[in-house]
C-alpha cells in the first residue's frame, strides 16, 4: 500500500478543515480528490506532503509515518502545490538544479535528472528562459518537473490544471497519464471531467469528510441507477404518467406540461434502456411522441447530489409520480 491515511483530522481555531478521514491508495493508482472549494482537499494534501501536521490520526507513505519520520517520507513524495511556487528571478535550469541539490540528487546525476524531467514535461527548449517570463502553462510544467526530480514513488498534485487554457489542460492531462505508468498519483481538482478522464478512483470530499469513494463509473451508477429517459408526449397527462411509472425498472416519473405537450423524465432503478418500451407504449395508447432520448447521469450530477443533497437543475414546476 503506497498511502495509508487513518482517521486524519485537522482543526483550525474556528473550523474543522478535515474530519476523521481514512483512505488508502495502492501503488500505481491514480486517485482524484474531488470537492468544492474549501472542502479540505488542499489541507489533506498539505498533510500528506508533510507541510502541515495533522491534529489527529496518522499518515503512512510507503509504510513511513509522515509526522514521525518526515524527512524519509518526503523523499518518497513529489509535491506540486496549488499556486506552483517558483523563483521568478531564476532560469528554468538554475531552478531545477537548485531543487535537485535540495532533494538530495547526487551531484553527478543532477544534470541527467534535470534533462530527464525537462524532456518529460516538454521543457527541453526552455532551460535558459527566466521563470518570471514563462506563461502559466509552462510554469505549471516547471512545477511538475520539480516534483518529479528525485523520482518519487508518490506524486501529490494539487489542482494541476487550474488556470490553464484548454490545450494546456489537455497536454497536462496527457502528461499525468504518462506519469501514471511509473508513479502513484493523488491529484485534486474541482473540475469534474478531469477526474473522469484521468483517475481510476475518486474520493469526493465535502466539508472535510469523504462523501464517497469509488471508480468514476461506479460512482455515477451508485448515485442514480444509471439512466434517465426523456419523453415528450401529446397525451392525457395523468394517465400517461401513471402508465409510464408502471414500466419495469422505473423508479420515478417527473412530468412538466408544455402547452399541449407533456415532458416526462423517467428515472430508472438499473442501468437499462427503456426507450423501446416507451415507444411501444405510445403506439399502443395512440399517443403522439416527439422526443425520446436517454441521458446518463454525469459524475457532475453525482457530485452535486453528494455535496449538496440536491439533484442538479431540478425544475420546480415538475410533478413527480413515486413508484
Amino acid at each position, binding site marked *: 500500500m503506497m498511502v495509508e491515511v487513518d482517521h486524519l483530522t485537522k482543526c483550525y481555531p474556528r473550523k474543522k478543515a478535515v474530519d476523521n478521514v481514512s483512505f488508502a491508495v495502492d501503488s500505481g493508482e491514480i486517485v482524484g480528490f474531488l470537492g468544492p472549494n474549501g472542502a479540505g482537499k488542499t489541507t489533506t494534501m498539505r498533510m500528506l506532503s508533510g*507541510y502541515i501536521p495533522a491534529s489527529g490520526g496518522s499518515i503512512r507513505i510507503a509504510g513511513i509515518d509522515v509526522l514521525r519520520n518526515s*524527512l524519509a517520507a*518526503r523523499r518518497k513524495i513529489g509535491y506540486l502545490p496549488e499556486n506552483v511556487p517558483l*523563483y521568478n*528571478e531564476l532560469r528554468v535550469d538554475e531552478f531545477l538544479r*537548485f531543487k535537485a541539490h*535540495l532533494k538530495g540528487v547526487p551531484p553527478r546525476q543532477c544534470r541527467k535528472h534535470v534533462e530527464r524531467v525537462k524532456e518529460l514535461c516538454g521543457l527541453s527548449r526552455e532551460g535558459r528562459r527566466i521563470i518570471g517570463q514563462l506563461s502559466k502553462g509552462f510554469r505549471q510544467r516547471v512545477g511538475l518537473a*520539480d516534483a518529479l526530480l528525485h523520482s518519487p514513488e508518490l506524486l501529490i498534485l494539487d489542482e494541476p490544471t487550474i488556470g490553464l487554457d484548454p490545450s494546456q489542460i489537455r497536454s497536462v492531462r496527457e502528461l499525468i497519464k504518462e506519469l501514471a505508468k511509473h508513479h502513484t498519483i493523488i491529484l485534486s481538482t474541482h473540475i469534474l471531467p478531469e477526474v473522469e478522464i484521468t483517475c481510476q478512483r475518486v474520493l469526493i470530499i465535502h466539508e472535510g469528510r469523504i462523501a464517497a469513494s469509488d471508480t468514476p463509473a461506479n460512482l455515477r451508477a451508485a448515485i442514480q441507477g444509471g439512466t434517465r429517459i426523456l419523453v415528450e408526449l401529446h397525451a392525457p397527462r395523468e394517465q400517461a404518467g401513471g402508465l409510464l411509472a408502471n414500466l419495469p425498472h422505473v423508479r420515478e416519473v417527473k412530468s412538466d406540461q408544455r402547452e399541449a405537450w407533456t415532458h416526462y423524465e423517467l428515472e430508472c432503478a438499473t442501468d437499462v434502456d427503456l426507450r423501446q418500451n416507451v415507444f411501444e407504449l405510445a403506439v399502443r395508447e395512440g399517443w403522439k411522441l416527439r422526443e425520446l432520448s436517454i441521458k446518463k447521469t454525469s459524475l457532475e450530477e453525482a457530485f452535486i447530489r453528494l455535496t449538496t443533497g440536491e439533484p442538479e437543475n431540478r425544475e420546480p414546476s415538475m410533478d413527480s409520480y413515486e413508484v
Partner: protein
Amino acid sequence: MRAFYALWKKELQGYFLSPIAYVVLMFFLLLMGVSLWFLVDMLSGGMIAGGVMQTLFGESIFFWVAMLIAIPVITMRLLAEEVKLGTMEGLLTAPVADHTVVLAKYAGALSFFVCMWLPTAAYGFIIRYFDPDATVDIGPMFTAYLGTLLIGACYVALGLLASSLTRNQVVAAVMCFALVGISFFAGFIPYVAANPSVRHLSAYFSPVIHMMDFSRGVIDTRPLILYLTTTLALLFAAIQVVESGKWK
C-alpha cells in the same frame, strides 16, 4: 550538507540577481568612503587622537548608520518573501530539515554582509600608502573586523527573526530597523544615565562601547560570548517561528 550548500548558494546568488545587492553596496561604500574621506582629512590636519581603526569603526557615526540601514535591507526578504510567494511550501516539503533552511538563509545573508565589508579592508592599506606615518596596525584592524562580524552576525540574526514573523518585507525591515536602532541608542545609556549601577550594567550591553574596544585592539571575552549567545538564541527563535508556523 549538500542541501545547506545549495540553499546558501541560492540565497547569496539571490542578492546579486536582484537590485538589492547593488543598491546596498553602493550606499554602503558611499558612506564608508565619506568616512574614509573624513579620516584622511583629519589625518592631514593632525587632528587624530586615537588609532585609524577607532576613527573608522568605533567612533564613526557612518559605521552605525550603515549598519542601521544595510542590515534591515539585507534581511527583510529572507523568510518573509518565501512565505509570501508560497515558495516556503516547496522548501519545507523537500527532504530538508526546517532548521537547515533557516540556517542556510542566515549563512547566505551573513555572507553577503561579509562581502559588503570586504572592499573596506583596502582602506587601511590605502592610508598606509599615502601616509606611511599613520598608525594602521594589523592587530586593531583584525579585532575591528572581528567586532564588526560579531555585531553584524547578531543583527543579521535579529533581522532573520523579524523576517520570520511576518510575510510583509516592509514590516520585517521596519521591525529590524527599530530593534537595531534601540540596541544602538541604548548603547549610549552608559554615557547619560545618572544612576551608577544602571551606567555600570548597561555598559555590558552597549554595542557602541564594545565596538570602541574592538577597534582599539581589545578582545574582551564578555562581548564575544554576549554576541555569540544572542545570535544563537535569535537563530533558535527564528527556527521555532518557522516550525510553529506549520502548526497554526
